[in-house]
């Protein structure tokens, strides 16, 4: 009795495909291949019986056998690929630990915190259309004091407050500027209104170093002179500044103050950043901290630089960059800015 009939082939096919499907290793797959398709394989040996069949049967069964072999081979190859992929994956991939090791980090340097704040301040005013003006740090007494309406007996002019230079062969008395306001004078002397500028720079005072004093620090001053510049414009510009600098929900207020070069003179406070206005030791329980001084340019100052104080008005303001940085980062010792201690400068 010949085994070669459609039913038998179909059974073998199904059995083989099932075994392939259930195979769990490459070796198992090879065994299955030999078992069915090897020289003495269960499917392969059926071909040897084909000559015993009638021509018609031979053609039909032969075709069926060929199709079955092809199908089984395809299935085998497909399964083989799968196993290979898994294997390759296993050989080439990292373990969980390896995958989570730290990478090749690059050390990118840091910009000094003071300069970060400095640029932030400058950028806000640039956005408002202010231009940047700079001037020398070694300055004439006339520009630093006299033209700014600072009287001859004002404490700021004392040797105890201002650093003067020892220049015996120079005709003029020079000093290290105590504020960037002389740049305002230089701008007003060289340009006609409208003027809308900020004056960033380093300034000097005769101060011993302690947690809240330095003999050199940085300021950003601003000046706007034009027809019809109002105190309300000053309030608007500075409110825009503090909201951009410290957050749009920050509250601010203006207080009466006194500076020889502005009239009216004001000081601007912002809500204490530490206690959010509730009152704490930083703001001495007032809920507010001082951020800057400002005012309307004193008519005498405008006249001193040849600007008609009845036709033109202006506002000016000045802020200490170190102070703003200290408020922003809650730094309690101003000297840290100039020590360049890695434990400090790499924090920002």
């Amino acid at each position, binding site marked *: 009795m010949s085994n070669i009939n459609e039913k038998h082939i179909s059974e073998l096919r199904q059995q083989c495909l099932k075994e392939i499907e259930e195979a769990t290793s490459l070796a198992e797959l090879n065994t299955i291949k030999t078992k069915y398709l090897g020289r003495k394989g269960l499917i392969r040996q059926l071909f040897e019986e084909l000559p015993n069949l009638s021509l018609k049967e031979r053609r039909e069964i032969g075709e069926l056998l060929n199709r079955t072999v092809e199908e089984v081979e395809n299935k085998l190859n497909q399964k083989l690929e799968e196993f290979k992929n898994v294997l390759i994956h296993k050989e080439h991939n990292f373990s969980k630990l390896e995958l989570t090791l730290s990478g090749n*980090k690059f050390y*990118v*340097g*840091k*910009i*000094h915190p003071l300069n970060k704040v400095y640029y932030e301040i400058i*950028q806000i005013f*640039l956005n*408002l*259309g202010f*231009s*940047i003006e700079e001037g*020398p*740090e070694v300055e004439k007494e006339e520009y630093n004091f006299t033209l700014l309406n600072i009287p001859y007996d004002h*404490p700021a002019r004392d*040797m*105890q407050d201002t*650093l*003067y*230079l*020892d220049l015996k062969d120079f005709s003029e008395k020079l000093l*290290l500027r105590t504020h960037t306001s002389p740049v305002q004078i230089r701008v007003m002397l060289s340009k006609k209104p409208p003027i*809308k500028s900020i004056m960033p720079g*380093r300034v000097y005072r*005769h101060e*011993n*170093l302690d947690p809240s004093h330095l*003999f050199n620090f940085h300021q950003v001053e601003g000046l*706007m002179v*034009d027809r*019809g510049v*109002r*105190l*309300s414009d000053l*309030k*608007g*510009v500075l*409110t825009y500044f503090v909201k951009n600098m410290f957050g749009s929900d920050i509250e601010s207020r*203006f*207080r*009466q*103050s*006194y500076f020889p070069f502005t*009239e*009216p003179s004001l000081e601007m406070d912002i809500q204490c950043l530490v206690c959010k206005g509730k009152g704490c030791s930083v703001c*001495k*329980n*007032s809920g507010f901290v001082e951020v800057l001084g400002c005012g*309307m340019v*004193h*008519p005498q100052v405008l006249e001193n630089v040849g600007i008609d104080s*009845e036709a033109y008005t202006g506002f000016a303001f000045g802020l200490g960059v170190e102070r703003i940085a200290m408020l922003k980062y809650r730094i309690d010792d101003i000297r840290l*800015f*100039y*020590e*360049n*201690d*890695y434990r400090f*400068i*790499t924090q920002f």
Partner: protein
Amino acid sequence: MKLSINWIKELLGKQNSISDDDIIEAIEQLGYEVESVNKFNKDILSKIKVVKVLKVEKHPKADKLSLCEITDGTNYYKVVCGAPNVYSDMITAYAPVGSCITGGVIIQEKEIRGVNSQGMLCSAEELGLYKESIGILELDNSFSIGDTLDKYLDDTIIEISTPANRYDCLGHIGISKELKIKFGLEVIENIDPLSYLEKKKLPFFNVKISSYDLCKRYIAIKMSSINNKIKLPFYITFRINSLGLRSINPLVDISNYIMLEVGHSIHIFDANKLYSDKIIIRNANNTEKVLALDGKEYNLSDDIIVISDEQKPVAIAGIIGAENSCVDIETSNILIESAVFNRSKIRLARKKLNLNTEASYRFERGSSFLLCEIAAVKAYQMIEKYCGGEIVKFADEKDFEYYNSLISFNTNGIKIDLNFINSLLGIKIPPQKFIDIIQNLGCKVKFNGDNISTTHSFIIVPPLTRQDIKFQADIAEEVMRFIGYDKIPETLPHNIFEVKKSIDNFKEEIKKVMISVGLNEAINYSLCSARENEVIFNNENLKVKVLNPISAEYSELRLSLLSGLIKNLVLNYNNQIEEIGLFEIGKVFYKKNKEIIEEEKLGIILYGKKDLLLWKKISLDYDFYYAVGIIETLFERLGIPYLKEVSNIKNTEYLLPKDNYFNNIIYFLDYYKNLIGLVGEINKDMFKLKLPKNIFYCEVNLPRCRELFKEEKIFSPILKFPPVFRDLCVVINNDITYPEIINAIYSSIKNKNLFLDINLIDIYKRDGLLSLTLSLKFQSPTKTLKDEEVEVIINDILQELNKYGIQLRQK
């Protein structure tokens, strides 16, 4: 300056009943910074009783304690008391058993050295009123026995700082006047207070002012038959004590009380201790010394003003009196001084002597002629009232020329256009409101037309006390203080968004390079010591010294960024930081042709081991080529071509370090042979540094580089044809720099459209000769280069190199 809110309320008129909080808020809005607010503790005071001491006996077992019998009018108690000032019949403060004193201490009935004490007699400090009490609180007849203390002592003490130009507001009267205007209360000016004394035609007291530059006015009032043993009313000494001064004796207390009230400081001398009836106001001698009332001796100098009799200084003007002329309880004849001193001289003396007093605080802010008179008049009135006596001599020396100038200035007045003020402020002030405020300030207002509400031009004459009001802007400020700055809207100027020059791109670009190569930014002081400036060649001619330095450590403007960066390096090294790479962009300062030059530089310091990947053990020490590489990277990024020079160029236009401060140094020049930078290995011995590894310093001349900086980039077509690579190994037996070799190669290329990129990939030293292997990359914009074409180019290169004695290395 301390203020009593009760005293202010009294001056405002008690009937007005304005709350403490309203007063404090108004003071702040008027431009006085409120530094602290201290309210007396009602919880404590409401339990403390006014009692009378009936009997005082010594404690049987303790010398310093007393046994006191006291009464609150209904009950009698026995208490043990340690205060030295207790006496029988004294009216004082009693903390009964169960009450609480400051610090949360609850009073209990207890035995003290074997004697039972039913409560405690209290000092002012124990009641939280003021510090520095000498014993228990002494009350007077204005207190009813049995009452609790809170009925009498209910006050808030605030401390404020006053603006430098408001010498009229240094006392309770000045501040109250400001508040009256703020609250719309009536202001009454005290005009011509001295007239009464002037009319009396008293004998003249001899006052000699040596120069009106020292003192503009000196009022002297001599009184005789004073009794300084009396007791002043409780409220006077209490106010003095609670405002931070100390009650001493009636005459001293009166002078302090007047200072606190009027804001003008007066002094009282014991006239019997003066050499004669003559006072001289003069500069001190450099040899003079004064034993002051604070018990300390001060060495005077000729820039300090003294009040002197014909023999000796009796006071340091405007600051403190001398021990030799002070009033005591035996004093019977006195001289009252009320004067106007030169404020800047007072301030200088105060700083020089390091002697801050209530008097100096006021005088250095200035003083007014009017308050000087008011203080003098109040002084003799108060002394007459409490200590008796009579005025026997009088003098009022003043600088009439100055006085007349004050008066005439004020009569001219200030022209005011309310429209101008409104447009200056960005607000509309109704004319009537404007006039009300100005008149309350004591200004006289004149205007044209009949209808106030439509008038906008005025003439305003400010009062004598307000010399600071001179311009329309001053009036604008005064009006705003009383209206409040919160009433001004926030607007933006009309041309606000007009875009101008932006941030400095040159410096931004440098900083980007610096941080991307891993350097941190440093900022150093621009002042340094003489020793730190030694690093610069020819430094004595260049140095800019400070005339009045803070200390020797910061006595000169820096000539180089190096000294600051070295300091930073040492600090971080001492903190166990193993890799230090810092850069600073900052100015150096030097003298040139009688001018001070401020020049910006970039400085870089490198030290230690740079870890690239720790666990792969990839790291390298900063070395010479790392430092050079940073500068080359920077120049390439800035688009600045450079040459290198090894010989020591003495370029007068550039601050060069001295040769011996560096071991190896290389200079970078631009194509015009200007020095644009340098890199060197620091000679650690010269800086006395004990660090194990090498330190490298780089410096870049920023003004020159800024001129060369190419900000604008123009697109060049992308090269489509493949590059060809050739390695060239050459032996150099000539004294030549690497950039010279590279330039020679470039100059040999005949086809100027050909792109060539050169990289050094190996160096090799044999028999003292250096061989370099260069990797060349050729690329044509128009075609794929053929081997033969490349061979021709290579030949051209070798021919050019031959001129410099450079040949292919023989295999």
